[in-house]
Every structure is written in structure tokens, then in C-alpha cells.
């Protein structure tokens, strides 16, 4: 702890804008103009007069020179000091305290997402062929979710080829797989030990369960057409392939000695390692 003091008295004066009545007069005048609209025109006229007075008065306040008042100043001793004498530090570098020492890189999740995205097409196509005798059925089902006017359509229409459906489904599928892969990769540093169990089984089951629970609220028509067993199979396929791809990536150091803010690339006072010996510390 320390203190800084400014010793010695001295007198001075400081220019400040002078108090003035004109802003309140102008505001009152303008308010009366509006009030007159709903009461009596005479009130608007009075407001207009006050507005003119207020405007002129205000101008005279600032032109040609702004009116000021001089405020007497007397500077006295000042102590700025902390009531806490001790600065405690948070230790962030205790091994294994917050995260494992090695993990998979986030990019491995994206690679897994791309691979899983291709893999899950296969059970989806098989479902289309078995259930509806058309590979376009699952594609249109997904594409239709993103196209405005595909409501109340027939099963035969969904099973037919539509290039809009193919484009829409491809875009939705690609973006979703990439985003899920990115999310997967972002979660891996937190749960890096069993990527296949996490990505291949746990996440698809949770995701399918969540969708099954809410789909009849979010999109009842879509809900009626989804075969949840097949849906789960395609999700698990995605997860298993994504998990396998991730598991075959080389691990990297988890940078556990660095604070989270540094690892995230976020500037944070007190957390940045600097030019003194005490690194990776936070201060209270």
C-alpha cells in the first residue's frame, strides 16, 4: 500500500459556465407550444413568445462571448490510499488444477464436423430409399425447412427432385455440420478424455432427445414427418465419425499455465504476463 499526497495550499479560481434561466425558459416555451395543440391556441402563442425570448436570451448568453463565473478554489492536502494493505494473488499455474495438460485442437472438431457431415448422408439416403423409395425425400425434408412456401405439401412432392430443395438442404447441412463441429471443437478442451463417447453417443442422444421434445412445438408438420429412430442413427453416425476423426488428431498442450484471458487472446489487466517475475497472477 502506498499513498500520494499533494501538500500545500494555494488559491485560484476556475471559469465555469454561468447559471442561466434561458434553457428552462426555452424548454417551457416549446412545451407550451405543444400543450396548446391539445388545449387552447392561446397557450401555443404564449409558448411561441417564450420560445423567442428563450432563444434570444440563450444567444446573448453565448455570443459574442460565453458567460462564465469564477469559482474560488482552495486546494488542500489529499490522501488517496487503499484500506487494504496486502495485495493477494491468484495462482493460476498449479498443475492440473483447472484443465488437463493436453487436449485436441479446436480445428480437429471442424474436421470431425466435415467428415461426420459426409458420413451421415449415408444413413439418411438409406432411410429415404427404404421408407419413401427416394433419396430426395430426406433432402427435401431438410431443404423444405428453409424454404418459405413448402407448407402442406404431399409426400410424393417431397420425394421428387427439386433443385431448390437440394441447394437449400446442402447449404443448411454444410453450415450446420461446420457449426456443430466448431462447437464440438470448442468443448473438447473442457472434456478431452473420451471424444468418441462424448461426440458419438452422448451428444447425439442429447441432441435428438432435445429436438424430439421441442419439435412438435417448433414445427409440428416437420415433427410428423421425422422418423426419430432413423434420425438418431444418422446423428450417431455423425458423432461416431466426427469422434473417430478427432481421436486420430494429434493432441496439443492445453497451455494450462496461461490464464484463460491470454489463451482467448483477450487483454485483461492483471492477467497478462509481463516484465516482472510474477507471472500469471491476478490481484485483489
Amino acid at each position, binding site marked *: 500500500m502506498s499513498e500520494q499526497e499533494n501538500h500545500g495550499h494555494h488559491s485560484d479560481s476556475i471559469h465555469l459556465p454561468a447559471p442561466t434561466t434561458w434553457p428552462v425558459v426555452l*424548454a417551457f416555451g416549446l*412545451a407550451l407550444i405543444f400543450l396548446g395543440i*391539445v*388545449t387552447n391556441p392561446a397557450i401555443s402563442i404564449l409558448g411561441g413568445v417564450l420560445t423567442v425570448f428563450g432563444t434570444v436570451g440563450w444567444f446573448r448568453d453565448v455570443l459574442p462571448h460565453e458567460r462564465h463565473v469564477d*469559482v474560488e*478554489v482552495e486546494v*488542500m492536502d489529499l490522501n488517496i490510499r487503499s484500506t*487494504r494493505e496486502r495485495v493477494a494473488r491468484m495462482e493460476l499455474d498449479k498443475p492440473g488444477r483447472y484443465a488437463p495438460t493436453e487436449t485436441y485442437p479446436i480445428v480437429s472438431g471442424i474436421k470431425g464436423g466435415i467428415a461426420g457431415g459426409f458420413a451421415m448422408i449415408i444413413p439418411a439416403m438409406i432411410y429415404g430409399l427404404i421408407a419413401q423409395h427416394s433419396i430426395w425425400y430426406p433432402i427435401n425434408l431438410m431443404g423444405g425447412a428453409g424454404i418459405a412456401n413448402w407448407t402442406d405439401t404431399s409426400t410424393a412432392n417431397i420425394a421428387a427432385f427439386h433443385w431448390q430443395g437440394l441447394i437449400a438442404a446442402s447449404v443448411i447441412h454444410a453450415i450446420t455440420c461446420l457449426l456443430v463441429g466448431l462447437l464440438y471443437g470448442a468443448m473438447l478442451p473442457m472434456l478431452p478424455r473420451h471424444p468418441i463417447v462424448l461426440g458419438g453417443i452422448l451428444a447425439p442422444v442429447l441432441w435428438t432427445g432435445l429436438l424430439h421434445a421441442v419439435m412438435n*412445438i417448433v414445427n409440428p408438420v416437420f415433427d410428423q414427418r421425422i422418423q426419430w429412430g432413423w434420425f438418431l442413427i444418422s446423428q450417431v453416425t455423425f458423432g461416431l465419425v466426427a469422434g473417430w476423426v478427432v481421436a486420430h488428431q494429434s493432441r496439443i498442450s492445453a497451455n494450462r499455465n496461461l490464464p484463460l484471458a491470454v489463451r482467448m487472446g483477450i487483454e485483461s489487466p492483471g492477467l497478462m504476463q509481463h516484465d516482472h517475475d510474477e507471472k500469471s497472477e491476478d490481484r485483489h
Partner: protein
Amino acid sequence: MADSALPAPGTIGGAIDVTPHHKAPGTFLETLHSWVVTVDHKKLGIMYVLYALVFLLVGGVEALCIRIQLGRPENHFLSPEVYNRFFTMHGTTMVFLMGMPMLVGFMNYLVPLMIGARDMAFPRLNAFSFWMTAFGGLMLYYSFIGGSGLYAAGNAPDVGWFAYAPLTARAFSPGHSTDYWTVSLLVSGVGTIGAAVNVIATVFCMRCKGMTMMRLPLFAWLSVVTSALILMAIPPLTAAQVMLMIDRYLGGHFFDTLAGGSALMWMHFFWIFGHPEVYILVMPAFAVANEVIPVFSRKPIFGYPAMVAASVGIAFVSLGVWAHHMFTVGMTSVGNAFFALSTMIVGIPTGIKIFNWLATMWGGKIRFATPMLYMTAFLFQFLMAGLTGIMLSVAPWNWQLHNSYFVVAHFHYVLVGAILFALMGGICYWYPKVTGRMLDEKLGKWGFWLLVIGFHMTFDFMHIPGLLGMPRQIYTYEAGRGWDTWNLIVSIGAFVQAAAVLLFAYNLLVSYFRGEVAGNDPWDAWTLEWATSSPPPEYNFVADPVVTSRRPLWDMKHPEDPDWKYE
């Protein structure tokens, strides 16, 4: 990054003074006159906050009357006409006459002090803005006695705070009650815009030496973001109100569907203002949290740049979500999908903020003084409000619950659970600076816990009648629909909240006269306002402060370990 050298210690010390107030207090009239003609940002800030607190009490009384009316089925405590006026005036009051003035008051008082300036950039405009806001509010309440309405007697606006067309047309709203709503909000809107211009100019042009934008206190950053949102959001409302006046006075047909106008257009104009307005109100709550949480956690704010980016991100996204208030009007699927997704996206920067506040608290030596209690409740309640907001952003869910008490509970969770709690915490935090006295901690904690209990009794249970189908704004309801007990609990909770607010107001009054002397820096804080006396002198700082980090007072208190080494 920081400068490589600190300014000379004497320079910093000279920037901060304790000027004794030698002048004897004047007579009541002299004092009153000095407040009316003042251009001092601190006095104007205090007037804004007091004005807001008065209207908090007025709007609160209206809310209590509404809750008495709904406390039991088939009740006739209020007449249907008065009930309509009360819910209209309650909403309008709390948004325009309580929330907005309160946040502008906070910005007015604190921003110049935090950036080391002597006043706002335009002191006279500042006074003008306050008086426009004040006269707008007075004009609105004058409608209770001056608005010749349906019965040619005084009556207040009764068209809801969003005043949907065609209810506002002359045919359905004869007399002048709706006109009072329009012109008074026009007048107060001028004041709000003036205040926003002033805050932006002050922050951009009047920062003290060394205070770069990345060293700006987050409160000041969020004040800029809020002011920018005000400049973008208020003009559409003003334009719509002018169009409404043209419809009502000059025979225009902007919102008259039978004559080729569009009632839907009013909704678009209103919500292009209305949704950013929610963020205009909640940003200052974030701003208060950004200052209070680090000080009471004894740690610097976590992720300062991310907090700035998230604030700007929220403001940006908030401009593109307005039609989520309009899912039930029958938009296209593309429109529904766009506004559902854009609404959900708000959750990302908001989540960043919540995580950063938690990360700030994590590992800190937290002191649960009254301001921090309010902030902790704010964090939890704002999270809950955000979650129900995400639920309502799903269009099919919204179709089921639109205009129900679930929506009312959701937005009161935001407006009371987040904003009011944070602003009350802010008042507790800066009260010693403004008055030189500490608030009574015991009374403060009693008030806090009463408010928590009352709030959760009211707004947790308000979700349930909403889910059971109770529409908002209904005058009364039949017994036996499953709403009775819930409404009774909600009404009791409202009275508990009222007791808490009264206790808070009592604490403000009593502590002003009998409170412990606060000193300059009672919380051991780090921003510049704590470096001057309490209350600060008219000129704030005798010499321009020089700062070298985001926590200038930390640097002064710990010269052996200053922040500028790390930033």
C-alpha cells in the same frame, strides 16, 4: 497499451482536491433558484434521478391499483375506463418518465467525473434537455385533469403504452387523451435526444489526458453506446407520432387501413423504436454492473475489450429484432425465421457479458455490501429474463403466448429484475459520492431482501397464469379458470415490492441527514469520481487529471504495482 511513464505524482495529486464549502446555505428560494438555473451536470443529474424516483412512486401506485383490481376474479376496484388509463400510464411512466430519466441522470452525473472533465460538453443544452424531459412528464400527467376525452371530462391516455392503431384513430379515441400521450412524449423525446448528443460529445471530446478509448471506464463506454442507440431509436417514434398527429388533426390516413393506410406500419415504427428502447434501458444497468462488480470483487473487470465489443454488438443486433414483437401479425416464414434468429443472436454478446461478470467475481474477495447484493440479484434475474426472452423468440412458442401474462412477466423480469435492481444498486453505490453520507447498511439490506422476495413472488408466479392463457390488459376475469390463486400471490408480491421501495426511499432520506460521513472513497474504488471530494466541488477537479490505465486510483494507491504495466 499504456504509456511508458507515470505522470509526476504531484500532477495527479494536484488534480484532486478537497475544497471546503465555506459558503453559508442560502434561503429556500435562493436554493430553489440555484437549482432551476443551474447548468452543473451534477445538479442536473441529481434532478433527473429525483424526477425518476418520483415517477417510480407514481407508476408504482398505478401498478398497485392494477394488481388490486386483478387480485381476485370479477373485481371492480377500478372502473374499466380507469383501469385502461392506469395500465397505459403505468407503462408510459415507467419507460419514459422513470427509466429514461434515471439512466440519463446517472450518465449526467457520472460521465464527466469518470473521464476527468469539469462538465458536459454543452452545459446549457444539458439544462434544456432536463427541462424538456420534465415538462414532457408534467404534460402527460396534466392529462388526468386537462384531457377532455370521451366524457368531456379529464382523462388520461388509455390506448396502451404502445398505442396501436387503429385504437388511436379519432373514431376510437375521441377527445385529446391520445394527443396528450403523443405530444408529451414528443417533448420529452427532444430532451432525451439532447442528452444523448451531449453524452457522446462529452466522451469523445472531453476525456482527460491519457484516457484513450480503451482506458475509458466501461460505464462511460456504455453511456456512449446507449446514447447512440437513443439517437437511432427515438426518431422513428417521433416520426410516427407526427404522422399520428397528422392523422388525428389534419385528416391524414397514415394508419387508417380503410383509407389506404396501414395499422401495421405503426407497429413497425413503434417497435423499431421499442426494442432498441429495451437495450437503451438495460445498457445503463450493464454499465452500473461493470463498475460495481469489480470493486466489490476486488478484481479488475474480466475481458474489458470483450465487454466493449459485446456492448456495441448488442446495440447493433438490437436494431434488427423489432418484429419479434409482431410474430402474430402474420409475417412470412422468412420474416419469422429472420427475426427469430436475430433475436437469438442477442444471446451471444449478452452471454459474453454474463460470463465476464462471473469471471470477474470468480476467485475474488467478494464483499456483499448492499450494492453488490443488488448486482448479484441482477445477474441471476437478468439471466432468467434472457432465457424467457429466447423462448419467446421462437415464433411458434410466441404464437401461443403472445399478449399473455407470460410476456408481461418476461419483460418485467427485464425491467424490474435487471434494470431496477441494477439502478438501485447503482444508487446505493454512488450515494456516498453524491451526498457525502453513507446509506444505512441495515436498512439497505432489509430493503434489498424485501424487494427480492416481492419481486419473485410477483414475477415468477406471473408466468403461470400466462401459460394458462390469461391475456394481458384484461380488466377482470371469471373465477375458476385456474388463474385466481396465482393472481392473488402476484398481487401480494406487488405490495411487498412497494414496501421495499418505500423502505429504500426512507433510507435515502434518513441517511442524507443522519448517515455516516462517507469520505472521498468509501468503497476503495478505482475510477476518477472517487478521487474528488464527496460531494464533488462545482468544477469536479481543480486540475485536469492524467491517467495511465483503466484504474487510475489503483495506480495511485499501488504505485509499486500499477495497472499500466499490464495493459
